[in-house]
């Protein structure tokens, strides 16, 4: 008997902002938000909302995990369509007037023969060219509308960067995210200023940095769920930090000296905070697509959904960078069992959402089989608060079973997890990163 606590909703409803990433305040007072979409890869769009929260413009056609939408001087919107590895420009009436897919005779290649790989930010520069952050190529590049590279910075200096933005002094400010630091680079590719040098207490996966008129830098310190303002001498002058783990993505300073912050897998909203730490505006219209079940359902995979996924389970491809699929071992007895097949860095999950009670301990168990897993495969039980905010800073903190690698025949995997006091929701996930296959069968989860 299938018992749902909440039914979820249709995926990809235009206007439903699931994961705010890029955010900027427009001269007209509206806010432009890039929505990365839901966990199954649906619903990514660029949304313009007015101060009362009405959606006045949005674009979603074909976007997959878009990380930024910026309004250009000519009134068009420039979008980094991240999982599609492309840059597109749309007119106000939603006509596409530029797409990086058309570069180099339709190959999408840039002038150096490379292809965009996980572009996550694009700004218009003074001369009308674009500054693009090309994350998985560990670089930021200045390109024209034909894909000609006019300048670039990266190589050994950058590690999965975000949010490279042009400064008034002609330099570029970049978040060297995996390096836990911010760099200011001049046109001669010299690092002229930096903040953070590795330890996570200073910066922990920063994904945005902006220069204020007063010369200070406001950094979005994601895993520390805070934004900090630092002086040129590197002193922290001001901070805004939530108690809950809300991995802020980027911050935009408004001309009223408030800060717009995109709250990604925290509370799925955009907040505007003032210097006193008060939230003076907020936009949240998130409707959760996946249902929440009262107890683990179809853990023995006897039912298959119309989409080829096990029924009541979701294939979460948001972080899978365009790859990965559900596979079935059809020869398995007494009924076929599912698995995940993956082939790149990034992460792929097969998951189910469950209602949980704080303080209760659950025993989770399944049998796992792996084939040539180069990275890691495991079971996670991830917990969320009532706003569907994550409770963990890093994936290594999430309660999990054993970590499997290589090839293993069926192994019993059991682990206990205690529900944190603020949690109302859990996601039970089969996880894999890097290449390989992992199969699962006989999943159970019970209070102990």
């Amino acid at each position, binding site marked *: 008997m299938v018992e749902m606590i909440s039914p979820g909703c249709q995926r990809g409803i235009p206007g439903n902002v699931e994961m705010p990433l890029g955010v900027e305040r427009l001269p007209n007072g509206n806010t432009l938000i890039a929505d990365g979409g839901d966990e199954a890869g649906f619903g990514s769009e660029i949304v313009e909302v007015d101060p009362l929260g009405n959606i006045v413009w949005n674009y979603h056609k074909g976007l997959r995990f878009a990380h930024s939408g910026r309004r250009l001087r000519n009134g068009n919107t420039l979008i980094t369509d991240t999982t599609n590895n492309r840059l597109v420009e749309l007119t106000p009436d939603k006509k596409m007037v530029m797409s990086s897919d058309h570069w180099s005779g339709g190959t999408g290649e840039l002038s150096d023969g490379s292809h965009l790989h996980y572009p996550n930010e694009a700004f218009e520069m003074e001369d009308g060219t674009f500054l693009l952050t090309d994350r998985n190529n560990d670089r930021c590049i200045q390109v024209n509308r034909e894909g000609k590279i006019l300048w670039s910075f990266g190589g050994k200096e950058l590690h999965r960067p975000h949010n490279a933005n042009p400064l008034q002094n002609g330099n570029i400010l970049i978040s060297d995210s*995996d390096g836990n630091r911010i760099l200011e680079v001049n046109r001669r590719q010299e690092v002229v200023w930096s903040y953070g040098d590795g330890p996570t207490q200073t910066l922990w996966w920063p994904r945005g940095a902006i220069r204020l008129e007063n010369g200070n830098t406001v950094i979005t310190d994601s895993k520390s769920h805070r934004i900090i303002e630092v002086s040129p001498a590197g002193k922290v002058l001001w901070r805004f930090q939530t108690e809950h783990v809300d991995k802020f993505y980027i911050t935009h300073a408004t001309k009223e000296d408030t800060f717009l912050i995109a709250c990604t897998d925290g509370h799925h909203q955009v907040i505007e905070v003032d210097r006193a730490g008060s939230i003076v505006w907020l936009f949240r219209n998130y409707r959760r697509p996946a249902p929440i079940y009262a*107890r*683990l359902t179809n*853990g*023995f995979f*006897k039912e298959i959904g119309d989409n080829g996924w096990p029924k009541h389970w979701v294939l979460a491809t948001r972080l899978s960078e365009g790859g990965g699929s559900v596979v079935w071992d059809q020869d398995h007895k*007494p009924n076929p069992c599912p698995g995940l097949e993956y082939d790149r*860095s990034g992460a792929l999950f097969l998951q189910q959402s469950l209602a949980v009670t704080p303080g209760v*301990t659950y*025993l989770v*168990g*399944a049998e796992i089989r792996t084939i040539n897993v180069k*990275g*890691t495969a495991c079971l996670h039980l991830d917990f969320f608060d009532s706003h569907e905010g994550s409770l963990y800073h*890093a*994936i*290594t903190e999430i*309660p999990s079973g*054993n*970590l*499997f*690698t290589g090839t293993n025949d069926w192994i*019993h995997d*059991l*682990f*206990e*997890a*205690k529900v944190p006091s603020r949690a109302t929701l859990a996601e039970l996930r089969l996880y894999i*990163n*890097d290449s390989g296959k992992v199969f699962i069968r*006989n999943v*159970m*989860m*019970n209070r*102990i």
Partner: protein
Amino acid sequence: MPMDKEISEKRKRQCLKLVEISKDIVRQAFDQFRKEELGITWTGGKDSSLTLWIIRQVCQEKGILLPKTMIIGEGDEFEEIDQFVEKMRKEWSVPLEVCRNEDVLKAANYTLNALIKVKDLNERNRAELQRIGFEAEEFLFEAESYAGNHLMKTVVFNEFLHRHKIKGIFQGLRWDEHPARFDDPYFEHKEGSDLSPEHTRIRPILHFTEKDLWDTYAAFQIPYCVLYKKGYRSLGAKTTSLISVEGFPAWKQDLENTEERAGRRQDKEKAMKEMRRLGYM
């Protein structure tokens, strides 16, 4: 056998303090429940044996016999544990009941890794499998399986509580054994359900670290199973418990920096460190 471990007077006093805290928990349990309503779980392992020793001390103070004690016969025991349990049962006059899920053992023909058909089990066992969401028609008789664990341990435990109308049951759990346990309380009340009676779980040694435990064994010359001297750090079912460091007694191993239960499963901490280094997580 005496442990070859030097314990300073200062350390002995610290261990005594830890024991006193445990004894206070035990005394509170005896204040809260009548002796007939109490029970003890024992495995022959280091944690439950220390707990039993502490409870025995309080009983001796009070001039009463030990409460009913249960040990689970899961069908995959070390002979050395059986021998140790039998020896201590006599020495300490432990009112011991060996509890087994006879129905499951019979269906498996008392053979490890045998295939058990659910329809061959009794009504109680079938109801239990349904309750945990087990939907297959058969399973292998293995110690570390979810279904096996549930029928051989949890069900047997609940039946013991029900049969003797136990209201308070002592367990030898420690905070540092498992991340999910780190804020478990000394007394935890469990609501009753159709298959599990209402009861309170009492854990007198929660505050002992693994090192505290071994130092206490050495300080007071408490008996322990010889397997720990051979290098086992944690003892579960025979087929799934592995020696942590061959020939190296448990108390001499690097207790603080390595995982206690590593010998029972893949070494997770090491795997996590490696994954972090490779940047996969």
